[in-house]
């Protein structure tokens, strides 16, 4: 497919100028080159071209950390502590015990940063200025969190379960990254403590040796380098729950509620949004009159299922359905493709949009919120027919 050299994806051209000037392809140890947004802590996104496959390989999977102290974990010495004031019987697990003493579960699920596409928000908001690649789809294998909590004896008054990773801040005064889930989500059959990703150990940068998998919910809950699980009788407080990862109340009414963390004015980000991404088209790509243009893409939602992906080549006046590829499960990327034969010369804008099983469709404009979350504006790519 054409479209290299001087052309950018239309979307990237609307990112902050400083983001475009400072992002480079850079490889962390064990990773292929990804688009670097920050070296320390490392924040790297997956180039869109890599999403032509429905499963995102481990060495191409995006990297997102809040705090710069990220220890190398020795698997033999690693321990996972399960406790909290709502646990009857606290205990520790080694990695071997986690693998041997609980039924293994495998599922394919999308991990998407809540701030994915922040860099495309208009007006721009401060933060990591992600393009479209702070997302990935992997086959995860691990133990059900529910089974681990059952062994610990969850008390009836448990309201939340909190998770801490081995990563930490540079300064003692900086709040450690600790997150919680409502108990109902923690005991969901699909919430896992994963120790494998696409048939291999988790990469260091994606949370070795174990991380939380919360299908359908934003990456902020998928705590990496997990070292403690605490069942709580009171809501978790702290910067990363009470201030960060929140949106104004009432703006996004369709997402799962996390009631014990709601305030008078704001609610926590929970579910990811329905989205469709064209993966093989570059802005400005040139095609020939009368020769079919084949568009490939992926679509995903919080796990209700993608009902339809639609393409428009006439500025949104008419839409045609794309054909689906393999179904890897309701939490997975759903591959799709669409072909059309151009009958006139000139510039065309290709637009794709996904509709999920709840009937929720992507938005035409970003629903503004202070920290730049929930950007699922339809993707538009301009191509030329010669």
């Amino acid at each position, binding site marked *: 497919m054409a*479209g*290299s*050299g001087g*052309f*950018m*994806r239309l979307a*990237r051209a609307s990112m*902050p*100028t*400083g*983001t*475009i*000037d*400072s*992002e*480079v*392809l*850079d*490889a*962390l*140890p064990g990773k*292929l*080159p990804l688009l*670097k*947004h*920050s*070296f*320390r*802590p490392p924040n790297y996104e997956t*180039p869109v*071209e890599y999403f032509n496959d429905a499963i995102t390989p481990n060495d191409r999977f995006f990297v997102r950390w809040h705090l*710069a102290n990220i220890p190398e974990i020795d698997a033999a010495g690693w321990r996972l502590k399960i406790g909290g004031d709502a646990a009857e019987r606290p205990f520790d697990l080694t990695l071997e015990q986690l693998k041997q003493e609980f039924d293994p579960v495998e599922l394919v699920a999308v991990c998407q940063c809540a701030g994915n596409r922040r860099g495309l928000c208009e*007006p*721009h908001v*401060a*933060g*990591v*200025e992600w393009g479209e690649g702070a997302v990935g789809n992997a086959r995860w294998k691990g133990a059900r969190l529910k089974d681990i909590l059952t062994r610990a004896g969850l008390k009836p008054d448990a309201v939340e379960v909190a998770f801490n990773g081995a990563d930490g*801040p*540079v*300064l*003692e*005064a*900086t*709040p450690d990254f600790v997150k919680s889930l409502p108990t109902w989500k923690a005991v969901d059959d699909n919430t896992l403590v994963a120790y494998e990703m696409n048939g291999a150990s988790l990469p260091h940068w994606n949370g070795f040796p174990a991380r939380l998998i919360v299908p359908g919910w934003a990456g902020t809950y998928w705590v990496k380098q997990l070292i403690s699980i605490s069942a709580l009788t009171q809501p978790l407080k702290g*910067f990363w729950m009470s*201030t960060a990862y929140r949106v104004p109340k009432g703006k996004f009414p369709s997402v799962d509620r996390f009631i014990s963390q709601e305030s008078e004015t704001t609610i926590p980000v929970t579910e990811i949004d329905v989205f469709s991404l064209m993966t093989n088209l*570059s*802005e400005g790509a040139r095609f020939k009159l009368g020769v079919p243009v084949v568009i490939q893409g992926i679509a995903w939602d919080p796990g209700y299922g993608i009902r339809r992906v639609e393409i428009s080549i006439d500025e949104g006046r008419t839409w045609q359905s794309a054909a689906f590829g393999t179904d890897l499960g309701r939490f997975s990327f759903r591959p799709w493709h669409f072909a059309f034969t151009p009958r006139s010369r000139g510039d065309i804008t290709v637009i794709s949009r996904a509709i999920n099983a709840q009937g929720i469709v992507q938005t035409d404009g970003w629903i503004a919120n202070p920290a730049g979350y929930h950007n699922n504006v339809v993707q538009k790519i301009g191509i030329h027919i010669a």
Partner: protein
Amino acid sequence: MKILAITAAAVLLAISAAAVATDESRIHLKDGADVATVLAACSVCHSPDYIEMNSRFLKRAGWEAEVGKMIKVMGAPIPDADVPRIVDYLTRNYGVE
């Protein structure tokens, strides 16, 4: 340097380039009064590409809010006297007036 719309060939080239490139010393903030103060204050906890990435769209009030968050929320030990100089530098070089 920016690399966009990557082809397979470009990715292969970048692999060899990246072997020597995983290093924040490549970041050079714009020269100006107080750039050393800015680097000393910010680089304790994060690489200075956070500043470049968040440009140019913040007004003075936006940069004031960011610096304030780093001090009040993240616990950055920045002396009071340095704050206006840091905000001036960021607004002039990485903001919009």
